[in-house]
């Protein structure tokens, strides 16, 4: 019964989302406030209905209702409760339901956030968001129904893919989807602005908070996915330039570009055409990611045909929204007036270069991901594009971008002074070079590229810290005055500084991996093995039965100077329900670094192990979290919460006071 209620709620959500699309759009054209007023109500209704559907499926999973096909295929009655719940989105149908839930959530948030956007813009944005709900709800109901029942239900489920039975599945997909789908609202705003024909600083201010939320969550989602891969896959890698990873990285890159160009639009009324284009592009890339992953086209061009219903449906959604977005853009963009002028050397100029580099980086990932598919589709030739390609193309772009960050922050709006910026950065440059050289000296040298990367990371980090210091510290001022001034800086200034510092921290962690140490050997109990500054020794091995799997555990001690400082377990798990096994790496965190133990096969010389010492590896993910916190800080800026200016002031959005405020805020 509950399952049927869920199914029914989904159909109701579809009907309501049609209302959410049609009525506010009509109302906005007819300037009918009551029609426009239906939009928010419908949006909240859609969210409630989808939430009921989601709850119903969750119920089916929690109670192991094996009359539901989706539950049978992805769950098992012995599975721990958490994994029974998370198994919901560990499969195609369930994850699409999660996707729609987030689409509806953002629609409802916009509906509730009353004063965040002017009336017509909000009505149109709700309509477009409703249209996105319509598309995906139709997809789910017609070809991807998670509520389908089985005529002859089995007694036990087939269990979830063991790799997915992990806390990572609880965290990573929801974060990633909030990020992906958050950009749907940004897209909705872009389409609404193009329909309404009003594209100005008010639009930028209304969109920026949504863009910040989406970006922060996407950042966290990608970072958590990377850490999950790192500890679950068991060979110490954390980024593989895999097409599935790239699918999430592309919207991140273009979303980052959008975050910066939207700033120029808000402060200076410039880069309008480009910002709108980026808003459309970012969501298009999110959709493309969904298509690439969902259609099976990645495995092989031909796998796409194995489930043409779904693949083609998603392709149709993709074509409709991307095509529609660009058609609107082509129709309206020529009408846009160019905004504020600025000198090449200025904050705006730096942000233009930032956007050029980010867009190129995004295009590079795009080409690297899709070129093999296109080539195979066109000529039948198969090639592989792996990490060496990205090392040669993406990394130089990223390095140029990192180098730019502190300079961009040191430049004034409109007309900057390069010599002045350099002199302001002399201290930052000096400090970062000294710190970098000190680290390299202690490590007895290292690869040139890694040293440069390390310096860039420190440079960006110190630059971020300096951002706050230079604005709050004055010669002769007491500490309390400095602290008060720092606390008084706008949250968006803090946000930018913290986010940039986070990027720096992440880059330091990435560069530090050049100093990681790998040891490969067969060991017997009691026989120590050196890895970096530590020794690892196998002490014990045993088997145990846990929930729905059996586990062979190898226990190691980590020694430093002969003393035991950590105990770490590495294991192999066998899941009888799927007749598969996984290996669990043993990871021991020491400071910011980790000792990583991966098990191999037992042979005549003992147990095969692959050991790593990964110095500062945690900085990679800590940096990403710091960057996301920066996004959240910026989101909490008071100016964004106040919302759109009142009617009287709206007439001159880019007038003197707005610009003056922007200049103050951005210094």
């Amino acid at each position, binding site marked *: 019964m509950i399952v049927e209620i869920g199914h029914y709620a989904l159909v109701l959500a579809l009907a309501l989302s049609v209302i959410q699309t049609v009525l506010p759009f009509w109302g906005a054209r007819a300037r009918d406030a009551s029609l426009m007023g239906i939009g928010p109500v419908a949006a909240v209704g859609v969210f409630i209905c989808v939430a009921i559907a989601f709850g119903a499926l969750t119920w089916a999973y929690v109670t192991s209702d094996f009359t539901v096909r989706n539950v049978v295929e992805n769950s098992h009655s012995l599975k721990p409760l958490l994994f029974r719940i998370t198994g919901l989105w560990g499969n195609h149908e369930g994850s699409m339901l999660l996707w729609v839930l987030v689409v509806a959530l953002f629609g409802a948030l916009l509906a509730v956030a009353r004063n965040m956007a002017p009336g017509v813009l909000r009505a149109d944005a709700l309509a477009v968001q409703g249209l996105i709900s319509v598309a995906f709800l139709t997809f789910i109901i017609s070809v991807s129904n998670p509520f389908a029942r089985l005529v002859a239900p089995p007694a036990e489920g087939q269990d979830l893919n063991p790799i997915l039975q992990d806390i990572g599945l609880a965290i990573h997909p929801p974060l990633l989807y909030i990020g992906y789908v958050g950009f749907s609202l940004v897209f909705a705003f872009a389409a609404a602005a193009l329909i309404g024909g009003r594209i100005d600083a008010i639009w930028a201010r209304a969109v920026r908070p949504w863009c910040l939320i989406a970006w922060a969550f996407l950042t966290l989602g990608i970072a958590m996915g990377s850490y999950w891969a790192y500890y679950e896959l068991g060979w110490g*890698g954390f980024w593989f330039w895999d097409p599935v990873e790239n699918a999430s990285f592309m919207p991140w890159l273009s979303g980052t570009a959008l975050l910066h160009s939207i700033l120029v639009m808000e402060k200076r009324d410039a880069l309008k055409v480009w910002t709108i284009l980026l808003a459309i592009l970012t969501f298009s890339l999110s959709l493309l990611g969904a298509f690439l*992953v969902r259609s099976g086209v990645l495995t092989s061009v031909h796998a796409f045909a194995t489930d043409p219903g779904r693949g083609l449906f998603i392709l149709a959604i993709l074509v409709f929204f991307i095509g529609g977005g660009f058609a609107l853009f082509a129709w309206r963009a020529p009408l846009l007036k160019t905004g504020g002028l600025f000198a090449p050397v200025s904050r705006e100029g730096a942000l233009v270069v930032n956007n050029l580099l980010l867009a190129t980086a995004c295009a590079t990932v795009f*080409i690297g991901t899709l070129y093999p598919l296109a080539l195979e589709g066109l000529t039948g030739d198969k090639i*592989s594009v792996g990490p060496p390609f990205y090392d040669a193309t993406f990394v130089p*772009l990223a390095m140029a971008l990192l180098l730019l960050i502190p300079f961009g922050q040191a430049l004034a709006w409109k007309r900057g002074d390069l010599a002045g910026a350099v002199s302001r950065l002399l201290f930052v440059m000096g400090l970062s070079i000294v710190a970098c050289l000190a680290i390299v000296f202690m490590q007895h040298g290292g690869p040139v590229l890694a040293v440069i990367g390390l310096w860039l990371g420190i440079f960006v980090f110190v630059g971020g810290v300096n951002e706050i210091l230079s604005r709050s510290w004055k010669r002769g001022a007491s500490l309390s005055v400095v602290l008060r001034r720092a606390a008084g800086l706008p949250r968006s200034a803090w946000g930018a500084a913290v986010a940039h510092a986070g990027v720096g921290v992440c880059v330091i962690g990435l560069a530090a991996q050049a100093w990681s140490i790998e040891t490969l050997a067969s060991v017997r109990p009691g026989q120590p093995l050196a890895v970096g500054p530590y020794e690892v020794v196998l002490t014990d091995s045993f088997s145990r039965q846990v929930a729905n799997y059996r586990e062979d555990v190898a226990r190691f001690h980590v020694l430093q100077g002969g003393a035991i400082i950590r105990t770490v377990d590495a294991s192999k798990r066998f899941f009888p329900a799927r007749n598969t096994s996984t290996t669990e790496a043993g990871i021991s965190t020491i400071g910011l670094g980790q000792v990583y133990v991966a098990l191999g096969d037992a042979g005549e010389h003992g147990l095969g192990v692959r050991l790593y010492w990964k110095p500062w590896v945690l900085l990679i993910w800590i940096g990403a979290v710091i960057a996301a916190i920066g996004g959240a800080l910026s989101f909490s800026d008071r100016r964004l919460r106040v919302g759109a200016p009142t009617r009287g002031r709206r007439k001159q959005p880019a007038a003197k006071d707005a610009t003056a405020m922007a200049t103050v805020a951005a210094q």
Partner: protein
Amino acid sequence: MSQRGIKLPVAAAIALGALVFAASPGQALQPDEVLPDRKLEQRARDISLGLRCLVCQNQSIDDSDAQVAQDLRRVVRQRLVAGDSDSEIRAYIVERYGDFVLLKPPFNARTFLLWLGPAIVLLGGAVLVLWGRGRSRAGAPALSAAEQAQLRKLLDEREREPPT
């Protein structure tokens, strides 16, 4: 083992749409495969990292636990011991498996767009930016004679008015 190498990543990628599935779990390079000669072993590792495990998604043979990957690792090491150069070994493996096995695709008639693509985008973007700047500077046209006259008139009027 080899079956796991194929099935898990594919199933998982289809299942979730998340990031984890670049590889299957398990054992990559094993201790007993390692060559005693450190220099040769380092060369073997460098070559292995550039060769794709044919049945996995974007995984090098060094990191893969698939049987095919293990076979290729063995081939690489046998050839190294036999005294082949790095490029000879790569050529030997490409001859058998095609360009697909190289994680770094060669530059040729079929891949020049891949390799030059980023540079083309960067240059094209730069040209667009410069062109856009030129256009926006020209976008504010000079005042016509009539407008100039009107402006002068307005300014004159304002001068005549007593300051308020």
